[in-house]
């Protein structure tokens, strides 16, 4: 199984494998991983960055930059150099759109030129690790795409750097409900009206069933939306009592990565038909 396939598999479980940089100008390596990709708004997603200096000289003035989508808050959890905690690093943010539209640059500096007074060189083959948390107070999907690192060998005036490629990007989801969606239903004059409020802009598929076993897709729409099922085959009346259940069906695609890992289904209390929702995209 390729690394990418493994990453995809773990993404489905809400984790991301460390992803190596797409480009580096020397033999150094850097990976970025997320402890989960879906969480509740105001909860943390922890990002771990591991760097190994592949050069033959100590890397001076090292900094790592992550172009973080606006709306996310970033805070540092720890910074290790060669396994030891570093406390005199510098942490800064720029302004929205400084480098990429809709993103704010955040940087962690081990040393600041020109004198590198922090005295945090990364020796050859030595590792450095930055762990930081991202949070969002609102429900949304954020795509963390661009990140890079920079180092310098002052004895040879030799710069080194690396950056992410398209395949290194990672989407994270902050939701306001544990299941990621809230659903509602009520009878209407011409059918049954379903409402869904999930991750904004994310497509959800509504399926219907007359036996809660075979399911037929009815509509795909972006959250939030309302949908009226006018199919009279379901033969309910406007007076039918609708019971909102949590009749999860593990055979179908689930709301990947959410805490409950379930699909929401509406059923009536008498005829056995119902509707269910799931996110219209596989990770």
């Amino acid at each position, binding site marked *: 199984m390729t690394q990418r396939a493994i990453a995809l598999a773990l993404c489905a479980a809400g984790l991301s494998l460390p992803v190596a940089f797409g480009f580096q100008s020397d033999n150094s390596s850097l990976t970025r991983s997320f402890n989960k990709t879906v969480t509740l708004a105001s909860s943390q997603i922890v990002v771990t960055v591991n760097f190994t200096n592949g050069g033959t000289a100590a890397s001076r003035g090292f900094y790592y930059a992550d172009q973080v989508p606006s709306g996310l808050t*970033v805070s540092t959890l720890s910074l290790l150099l060669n396994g030891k905690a570093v406390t005199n690093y510098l942490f800064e943010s720029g302004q929205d759109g400084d480098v990429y539209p809709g993103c704010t640059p955040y940087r962690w500096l081990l040393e600041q030129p*020109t004198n590198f007074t922090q005295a945090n060189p990364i020796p050859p083959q030595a590792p450095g690790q930055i762990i930081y948390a991202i949070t969002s107070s609102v429900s949304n999907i954020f795509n963390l795409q661009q990140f890079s690192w920079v180092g310098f060998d002052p004895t040879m005036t030799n710069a080194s750097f690396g950056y992410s490629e398209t395949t290194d990007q990672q989407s994270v989801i902050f939701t306001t409900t544990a299941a990621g969606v809230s659903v509602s239903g009520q009878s209407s004059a011409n059918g049954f009206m379903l409402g869904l409020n999930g991750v904004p802009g994310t497509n959800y598929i509504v399926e219907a069933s007359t036996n809660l076993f075979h399911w037929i897709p009815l509509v795909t729409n972006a959250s939030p939306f309302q949908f009226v099922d006018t199919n009279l085959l379901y033969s309910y009346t406007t007076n039918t009592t609708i019971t909102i259940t949590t009749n999860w069906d593990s055979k179908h695609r689930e709301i990947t990565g959410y805490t409950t890992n379930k699909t929401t289904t509406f059923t009536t209390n008498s005829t056995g038909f119902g509707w269910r929702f799931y996110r219209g995209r596989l990770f």
Partner: protein
Amino acid sequence: MGINKMNNGKKWPYHMTRRQFLRNYGLASGAITLSPFFIERFSAVCQAASSLTRVYKVMNAPDSLTTCSQNITQLWKMLDGPAKFISPTDVVVIKGNAQWPNQGYTHTGCIKAVIDAILAIPGFSGEILICDNIQGGGGGAGTYGFDVPVSSRINNWPTYNWNQLAASYQSAGKPVATFQWQNDINWRTPPSPLPGWSTWNPANGVPNTGTAWSRYFLNYSGRNTYISYPIFPSPITAGRLIDMKNGVWENGGYSGRKVKAIFMPPLNNHDYTNAGVQDYAGVTSAVKMFYGATEIFHGSPSYISDGYIWNNYYNIHGSSFSLWPGDTQAAWYAGQLVGTFINNLYSPVLYITSAIYSGWKDRVDTNGAAYTNTVLAGTDPVSLDYISCRDVISKVGSTPPTWLNPSTQNNNTWLQLSGCNSQGIGTVNPAQIEVMTYDFNNPTATRLDVDRKIRDFKAGTATEQDVKDVINLYMESE
């Protein structure tokens, strides 16, 4: 750094040091003010930096007495290019200061460099118009930035005046023109209650003066006051009206094409007494130049006063500066009304101060200006003027005009800026201003320069060596 030093197998051309190479080739870079608000340690949440307002300053370009393009070119690099502010289809209005000769009008070479960058936006199909309302003041025809002769281009770009500059572009087929806004001397009934608008309907064309104005009426500190913005015909596209607030009008309606304003002030001591002292305004630059963006009707049929009260309504000058010296807060009122203008009429997308020369004595005395060789930019006029005054004009001259330094509170410059700031525009707190500087005499690079160059490399518009050059400069910046 030794001469001819090898760098990753790359030799700098023509036996230059890398620094010389970078200086001569104008590599993007800048020096950043690392204030305590910008860099934080440990796990502090980075909120403060984003709240900083940024002012860009470029100085000491070697070509400022000739071609005069390197300062502005470097400024655009630090601003991440004109396309960040201007779309290819926009009509761009460059509002300069035209009323006074010599250093009093916006440096034509700087205007040209700004125009060149906008015209270079891929697919640019808009227009660029150089505009101002000189309010019928100054020295009369032949003394304005539009039409000033060579003899009155002292401490300015000698090659062209504004009209000649526009003509040179037009002869090359470029969509550049000048337009001198004129007051409309026709009174219109204000709305009731105040504040409110008397908007001009573009369907009615423009008055005989050539410029229509939408007027905003308000009661300001007990004085009924009006401020206005122009609607005027494009000198380039027949049938097109330029509405500074609502965009382009043509074919009977607003077309959706946007109008973007770039304000380009000079940097001078206002002093109308020619004594080299602080007058009622203090500095005249980005905030003060709004007085040429509106109507200051002086009375009819001939000039009465800057403070003329028109049917019981004050113009912006009458409602502020004309109250001086009886009211020592006049400069504050002036700034506050400019803030009102920005919040209610329109807000320029960018301000670029041309301080190639700075009139430390006044706007016109050719012996009262210093060659400061600096340009500055920002997205609000208050922070920009604060830095221009603190770092440039207050430090030059045989008798440096320290009264122009807003670090000393309660001088008229500070009052002017603080009044505007009171409307939520910019800041007069230097701790909230991030100054990004590039000095051609000491080229430097920032982490922002590095990150952008990496971005450009990824996009295929820079080479790996370009990235390394910027990193090396950043690492060795002094």
